[in-house]
């Protein structure tokens, strides 16, 4: 996951973080479009990651 020094992480943490795909190299996919790899430019999607496009915008209501 990103730039964390893996040596500092416990085995449990490494397993947990390893269970999620490293989205670091990707810009976000919006509305099902193919995500672009390793964009160096900064835009709002890049800051939030693919998750944000889908699941973070509306929180849990009822």
């Amino acid at each position, binding site marked *: *996951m*990103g*730039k*964390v020094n893996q040596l*500092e*992480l416990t085995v*449990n*943490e490494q397993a*947990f*973080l*390893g*269970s*999620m*795909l490293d*989205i*670091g*190299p*990707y*810009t*976000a*996919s919006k*509305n*099902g*479009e*193919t*995500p672009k790899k390793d964009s160096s430019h900064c835009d709002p*999607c*890049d*800051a*939030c*990651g*693919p*998750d*944000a*496009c*889908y*699941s*973070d*915008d*509306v*929180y*849990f*209501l*009822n």
Partner: protein
Amino acid sequence: MAKRHLYIQWDSTNNCNLKCSHCYHNREGNSLHAQDKKLMELDEVKLMIDDLKETAQRWSMIPRIAISGGEPLMREDHLEILEYANKKKVISSLLSNGTLITPKKAKELYEKKVDTIQVSIDGNKETHNKIRRRDFAYDKAIEGIKNASRKGIKVTVAMTLMQSNKEEFEDIIQNAIKAGAIKVGFKTYVPDANLGVKDPEFVNAKEIYDMFKKTEKLKENYKNDINVLQSDVLWQIWHKDHELIEIAKKQNKYLYGCSAGFRMLSVLSDGTVYPCRRLPINIGHISEGIGKIILEKEVMKELRDLDKIRNNSLCDKVVHCRGCRAVAYAVTGDYMAKDPMCFKDLLKR
């Protein structure tokens, strides 16, 4: 570089000036949410924010807190909490009913750099007031959205999709635009666990499918005026698979979709932790530490078991969907079961 969010939805208070029919506080009853139940003190809240910041930093994630209630503006120290979150560079949002956002309050919130305010609107005026059980609820909420938007705060309008209001989403979009909101979306309703699919507000898979079809058109129609969100977890099965999904499938790793078990916790007003606000399973107390709870609690580990959900639901989309675990739990009593609102079979026809 893209980073994941690590976030907490926190019930800052049990107090509220409305009495909404679908609110989990009312549903869960006074035994859990009695007004005199011990609230987290300011010092405890600050420790939680520190923990969120440090854990996110350690895991290379972006820390984010959504402050809910009750009505969060009824907690006296809400400005101090927002200020502290901002100082710690933790992104903060308020989940509010909007009725208490006066011009003065909007100014204060803006000055404390709240990132977003989500205001719940559940239909047109008549429907909203009926659901919220207060005659003033709609007008005051719209006024609150206007006050916040005028001040420059980003406002998202959010609806809980139920039988009572599923025909009114376009009304909500139009009124959100008029009030100055920049985003609008809905989340599916979690039925009462005692009623399951017999809950009169339950929206079934076919109806959800129809609603998504309609929303796709609405998004296009209103694209110049507002962002119509496609943020409910089931949108994952609507969109076509792409390269990143293929990579996640190949590696059998979580990509996105439901965050329960992975990078989200819900904290009640007394510090009790649920995996999600809509999944009422007590998994500990926030004082145990965010990292420990996420890594070590058995419920959290099980929620990360993609193979189990894949086998239960006979679905190959678990790396990017997994349905809503809370709806599965409410209807079947098993949070690892297939989401009863899932409409993927309809897409094949």
